[in-house]
């Protein structure tokens, strides 16, 4: 280095480290040799040393107050992270449930319906449908179960009928007033003594569109109870049931009261926690 102010960053770093005794022995020896020959470099070192001395001469100021912590200071804020976490979880759960509800209502259930209709009677076409399969059908597509029972009661009713029923159920998507009319008419004719199985279905579905299938289930139950051999007549019943399958598909996207309740509950919880979090944040600042 020859000119002051033109010292490279490396040279400045070396001088700085040398001042603090942090330069390696070999580097320090080389620097000392240069310092002997270069008065400008010596001046640089001297100025740096004086600067450090000035900085270290700054007085230590007494703290203006005690910084000890009061219990209420740390206690007051402990709820804030929990509130933040709770709000985040409630919001996330709400989004997941609503998202699942929307996605499930748009396409998943008709496909499930078809699968279940195919699976349940195909396993034992001549006998009564297996209970687990029935349970699933009751939960997901209540209308399908009575139809399946009717098929089973018909002792080997062709699987094709069920396929047809399923197919007719799949494409439906909009509510049809006819279904409601049909329900109203059939409900009046339904016999109280034969609606035990259907009652559960109606309760689970909680929907007006369930009614046609409910009455269908009643008929199937009557047929089974009386031990009648259903031949062509039974098939006719099934064929009649096929067009009535449309309401089945319409009912599928409907949300159960439990799901709706969960959505409302989670939404309300997220809002309440969010408000509490904002208030806690304001208290902090």
């Amino acid at each position, binding site marked *: 280095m020859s000119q002051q102010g033109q010292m490279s960053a490396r040279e400045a770093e070396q001088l700085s480290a040398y001042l603090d005794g942090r330069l390696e022995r070999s580097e320090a020896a080389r620097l000392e040799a240069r310092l002997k020959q270069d008065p400008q470099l010596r001046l640089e070192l*001297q100025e740096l040393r*004086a600067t450090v001395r000035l*900085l270290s001469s*700054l007085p230590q100021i007494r*703290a203006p107050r005690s910084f000890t912590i009061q219990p209420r200071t740390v206690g007051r804020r402990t709820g804030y992270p929990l509130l933040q976490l709770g709000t985040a979880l409630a919001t996330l759960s709400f989004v997941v449930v609503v998202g699942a509800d929307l996605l499930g209502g748009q396409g998943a259930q008709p496909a499930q319906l078809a699968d279940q209709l195919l699976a349940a009677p195909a396993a034992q076409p001549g006998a009564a449908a297996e209970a687990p399969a029935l349970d699933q059908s009751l939960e997901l597509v209540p209308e399908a179960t009575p139809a399946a029972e009717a098929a089973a009661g018909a002792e080997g009713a062709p699987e094709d009928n069920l396929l047809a029923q399923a197919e007719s159920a799949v494409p439906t998507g909009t509510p049809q007033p006819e279904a409601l009319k049909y329900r109203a008419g059939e409900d009046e004719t339904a016999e109280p003594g034969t609606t035990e199985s259907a009652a559960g279905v109606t309760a689970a579905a909680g929907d007006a569109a369930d009614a046609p299938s409910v009455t269908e289930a009643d008929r199937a139950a009557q047929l089974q109870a009386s031990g009648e051999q259903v031949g062509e007549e039974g098939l006719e019943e099934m064929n009649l049931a096929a067009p009535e399958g449309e309401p089945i598909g319409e009912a599928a996207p409907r949300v159960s009261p439990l799901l709706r309740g969960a959505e409302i509950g989670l939404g309300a919880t997220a809002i309440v926690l969010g408000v509490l979090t904002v208030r806690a944040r304001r208290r902090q600042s």
Partner: protein
Amino acid sequence: MDEPALIDAAQRGELDAFNRLVLQYQELAFNVALRVMGEEAAAADATQEAFISAYRSLRGYRGGSFRSWLLRIVTNACYDELRRRKRRPAVSLEALIEDSEVEGSIGSTNPADNPETAAQRHELIDAIQDCLKGLAPEFRIVAVLVDVQGLDYDEAAQSIGKPLGTVKSRLARARAKLRDCLKAYGELLPAEFRLQNEAVP
């Protein structure tokens, strides 16, 4: 109770134990914050925030130099406070001068100084503080830790959470900038600190 025992008790949630650590380190923490912030009120805010933050994150302390661990929290609190004050600039530059006079600057801590000497020392302190404020915060913090508070490189590296090489280079740049800045206050500098015409050995 020694420091490790106090730390251990504080980690178990004993606030009294932590407050004894606060009393032990509050002068250091406040002075670091004061030299970094350049204003007493801001320094006090940063220091208080740092101790509250330290208490909450005490379980994260895994041994080593407690002073470095604490100073890292203090420097982070200073960064936060600087950012806050940059958004809401309302800094009273006079406050530090007056507070220094009251609380104990070089002049006021030496009763032997006559009024003229005391005034000169106050001006010198203001000049140094002014030069420190002219540095970018990352350089200022290193200069304060090493040159004002006397930490070694390793402690300073731990305190800013950067490698040793970063401390070396930042310190060299900070010193060079401070030297250039202080030259402008040549007439204020005491004879032994005069940089311009200092004799070369």
